[in-house]
Structures are given as structure tokens and as C-alpha cells.
């Protein structure tokens, strides 16, 4: 039975990891569709490079820092690594998405290395990993965060908040006290991207259960994936309802964000709930997104993809929800985790971004933004003129 478990669980992790990696094109397409055509190549370059650079940094440095060892008795240690590695780029990508259309690539890559080699691995260390804080008053290992409402989504989003504060809004976004709309350039890509993310979540949460090689764990994995999906359904439905009540129209970008918000919210405790609680968690998560998006605009925090609303607000809500709805999980422990990780991620990110910015400016100049980041950073137009000329 020992060999069988090892083999099946290794296969399980590799399969889950593959689903998570689908979130790379998922995120990429979502962002490619939301930004203007003149910034598409840059956004796709950032998405690709973040996956490459963050994963590499985690391979070389971060994984060891987070877990203290590569050794593993229950699965192939390479599979265990890969599964963890799949999350790193996603965490950094949350940060990069929200500063799209006005951010230069090189400073982003510098921060990517620091986040993947240092910030994120430390958060993982304190929650899922070797726990260097054990026994100290900062010990947050009592927080139950199955797949990273706090560890991944909030961490990435706190870094994003720091970045938006330092980099500022897109040129022309807030003019004369008004919010100027910058519409998405390709709604089909936005939709495709969001739905691929949804599918990736089955690996994200399901895989985080860790093992499938017994009847109990097989049930748990299936329940986890089911609860994950349910929360997404609820988030989409409530977002559609609220947007319609407010504006008498269905905004697909908000509906998709609502679904993603539900998915983020369930990520902390999908393994702990009965099959109905995720409906409530997803409903609240989706509603939070719909109200948060315009709120961040009122605060002049320009977030083209709604990452703050989806990942920060719901990363926090999802973690707290476990303390409210799950038996045997203390709300205090959840809150402590939220606060410790939040302070750490935000403060350290802010400092690092601030320093990097002094050396290699993050913000693309007004002229660069007008022309499009594709021209200044990539030299590759995503939608070149006269494409049928030849």
C-alpha cells in the first residue's frame, strides 16, 4: 500500500500542478483582454517573465527557505516541489496585474525575484512550511489556510496595494475629479482567461489537500473541489444580480470578477465546509467585489483588473470566514494570521518597491503611456497595422 500511495499521490500532485499552471495563460488572457491594445504585448511579456523568473527564484532559493528541506517521504519530492512552485508565479502575478498599463518591465522583474525568493517563501514558512516562528508570539501556524486565501491571494494583493500607491494611476484615469472609463479591448479574452482560472482552481484547492490515496482523502479532495466550484457559482450569480439592480445592465467583467472573488474566498477552507456553506461564502465574496471595485476608484487606487477587490478583500474575507463557519478553527487565530501576514507583506513590499523605484523607475512616463507600453518596452505591437497587407 505504501508504494501505491506514493505513486498515486505523486500523480495527483502532478495533475493538480498542471491545472494550476493553466492559470498562467488564464491570467495572461484575462489581462490581455482588459488592457488597451497598445499595452497587450507588454502585459503578456510580464505574465510570461513572471512565471519564468518567479519559478526559477523559488527553485533556486525560495523553496528551501519556505520548507527547510526538499526531503519527502509520502510523495516524490520533485512533485512536492512542483506543486508548491506552481503557486509562486501566481502570487507575483496578482501584483503585476493591478499595475498594468503604466509599469516598466525591468523593475517589475527585480521585485519578482525578491518576492519569489524572500517575501513569499517567508510567508509560506510561517504557515505551511518549516515555521521558524514556532513558539514565538508571532506564531501563526494555527491559522487554517488550505490553499492560500492569505498566503497567496492576500500576500500578492498587499504587494499590489503598495505598488499602486507608489506607481500611481494610469495617465488620464482620474481627471477633474472624475473617473474616466478605460474600457477593455477584448471581452472574449477576458472571459476565456477568467474561466481558465476557474478551472485551474480545481488543482489549486484540490491539490492542496495533499493526498488522494485513501477513501477518506479521495472524498476530501472531491469535496474540496466541489466547494471551490460552488463558491465560484455563487460569486458569479450575486455579482450579476447586484450589477443588474444597480445599473439595469449585466457587466460581464464584474460577473467574472465576482466568480473569482468567490473562488478566492473559499480557498482558505474549502476542505472544512459542508456543501452549502460555500454558497454563502461565495455570495458574500462576489458582493464584496462588486462594491469594492468602485470604492477603490473613489480612493484613486487604479486597478485595471480588479485584483485588489478579488484577491485582497476576498483573501481576507475567506480567511476570516473559516474562523466563523468552521468548527475547531478559532477566529482569533485566523485574524492573527491575516494581520501578521498583512503587515509583513505590505510593509516589506512597500519598502522594497520604494527602494527599487529610486534606482529603476517603475512608472512609465506620460509619453510612454500615451504611445503604449508595447512601443517603449517591447517593440512588438500586439495588433499591428495593416496586418493583412502581406
Amino acid at each position, binding site marked *: 500500500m505504501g508504494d501505491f500511495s506514493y505513486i498515486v499521490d505523486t500523480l495527483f500532485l502532478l495533475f493538480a500542478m498542471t491545472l494550476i499552471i493553466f492559470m498562467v495563460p488564464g491570467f495572461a488572457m484575462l489581462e490581455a483582454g482588459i488592457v488597451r491594445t497598445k499595452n497587450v504585448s507588454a502585459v503578456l511579456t510580464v505574465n510570461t517573465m513572471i512565471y519564468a523568473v518567479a519559478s526559477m527564484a523559488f527553485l533556486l532559493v525560495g523553496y528551501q527557505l519556505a520548507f527547510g528541506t526538499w526531503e519527502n517521504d509520502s510523495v516524490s519530492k520533485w512533485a512536492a516541489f512542483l506543486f508548491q512552485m506552481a503557486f509562486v508565479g501566481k502570487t507575483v502575478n496578482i501584483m503585476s496585474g493591478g499595475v498594468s498599463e503604466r509599469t516598466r518591465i525591468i523593475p517589475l522583474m527585480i521585485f519578482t525575484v525578491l518576492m519569489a525568493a524572500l517575501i513569499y517563501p517567508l510567508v509560506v514558512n510561517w504557515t505551511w512550511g518549516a515555521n521558524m516562528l514556532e513558539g514565538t508570539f508571532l506564531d501563526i501556524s494555527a491559522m487554517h489556510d488550505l490553499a492560500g486565501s492569505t498566503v497567496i491571494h492576500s500576500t500578492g494583493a498587499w504587494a499590489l496595494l503598495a505598488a499602486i500607491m507608489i506607481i500611481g494611476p494610469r495617465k488620464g484615469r482620474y481627471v477633474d475629479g472624475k*473617473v*474616466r*472609463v478605460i*474600457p*477593455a479591448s477584448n471581452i472574449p479574452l477576458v472571459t476565456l482567461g477568467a474561466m481558465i482560472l476557474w478551472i485551474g482552481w480545481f488543482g489549486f484547492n484540490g491539490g492542496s489537500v495533499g493526498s488522494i490515496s485513501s477513501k477518506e482523502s479521495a472524498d476530501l479532495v472531491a469535496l474540496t473541489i466541489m466547494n471551490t466550484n460552488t463558491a465560484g457559482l455563487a460569486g458569479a450569480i450575486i455579482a450579476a444580480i447586484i450589477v443588474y439592480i*444597480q*445599473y439595469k*445592465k449585466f*457587466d460581464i*467583467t*464584474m460577473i467574472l470578477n465576482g466568480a473569482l472573488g468567490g473562488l478566492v474566498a473559499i480557498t482558505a477552507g474549502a476542505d472544512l465546509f459542508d456543501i452549502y456553506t460555500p454558497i454563502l461564502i461565495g455570495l458574500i465574496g462576489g458582493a464584496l467585489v*462588486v462594491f469594492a*471595485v*468602485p470604492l477603490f*476608484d473613489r480612493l484613486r487606487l487604479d486597478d485595471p483588473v*480588479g485584483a485588489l477587490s478579488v484577491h485582497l478583500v476576498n483573501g481576507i474575507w475567506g480567511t476570516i470566514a473559516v474562523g466563523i463557519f468552521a468548527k475547531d478553527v478559532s477566529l482569533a487565530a485566523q485574524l492573527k494570521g491575516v494581520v501578521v501576514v498583512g503587515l509583513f507583506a505590505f510593509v516589506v513590499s512597500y519598502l522594497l518597491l520604494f527602494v527599487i523605484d529610486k534606482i529603476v523607475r517603475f512608472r512609465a512616463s506620460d509619453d510612454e503611456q500615451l504611445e503604449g507600453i508595447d512601443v517603449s518596452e517591447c517593440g512588438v505591437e500586439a495588433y499591428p497595422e495593416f496586418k493583412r497587407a502581406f
Partner: protein
Amino acid sequence: MKKIEAIIKPFKIEEVKDALADAGIAGMTVSEVKGYGRQAGHTELYRGAEYVVDFIPKIKIEVVVKADDVESIIEKITEAARTGKIGDGKIFVTDVERVIRIRTGEEDEEAI
């Protein structure tokens, strides 16, 4: 020779094209444009913020015809493109100095 520029509602392009073909027009240039006249814009919604879209999609047809044919062409276009509702478009007539067919070098009326 005269150039006739007609700005019409996009869904009328097939009808207008057929009407011009019946009238013996051998070729035309068509482009997708946006614009507005008295047909005001409308309000759209994006992520909780409203914005006004002033420019409405239209199609512009350009044909160059002999001066004698201008009146009948105008009539054909108008008949095909009119819906009676606001936003039907406009027709502009201007002078054309020279016309050259690139393949053969024919000029002016022979090139139309």
C-alpha cells in the same frame, strides 16, 4: 467627374451596394467610421462607472461617377439607405480633378 461620399447606417451596406450595382456602378470604396450628427450618443457602463459614447459606428461609401450620373446615384443611395429614423446619414458631393486606372493607365471617364 464627381465623388459621392455617403455616410450610412452599417446594416444598410448590402442594400446600398446592391442598389448601386443595379445602377451600373462598377466599384466603390468602403470604410468603417464613427460619427454623430443630431443622433446623440448613449451611456455605457463599465465596472461601476458610466461613460458617454458620442461616436456611433457608421459606414462610409465613396464612389466616383460622371457628373451626369450624380443625381440618379444620389437618389439610389438615399432610397436604399433611408429608414426614416434619426441617424440615417448624409451624402457629400465633391469635384474630382483626375482619375487614373493603375493597371492600364486609362484616365478620367474611361477609368471610372
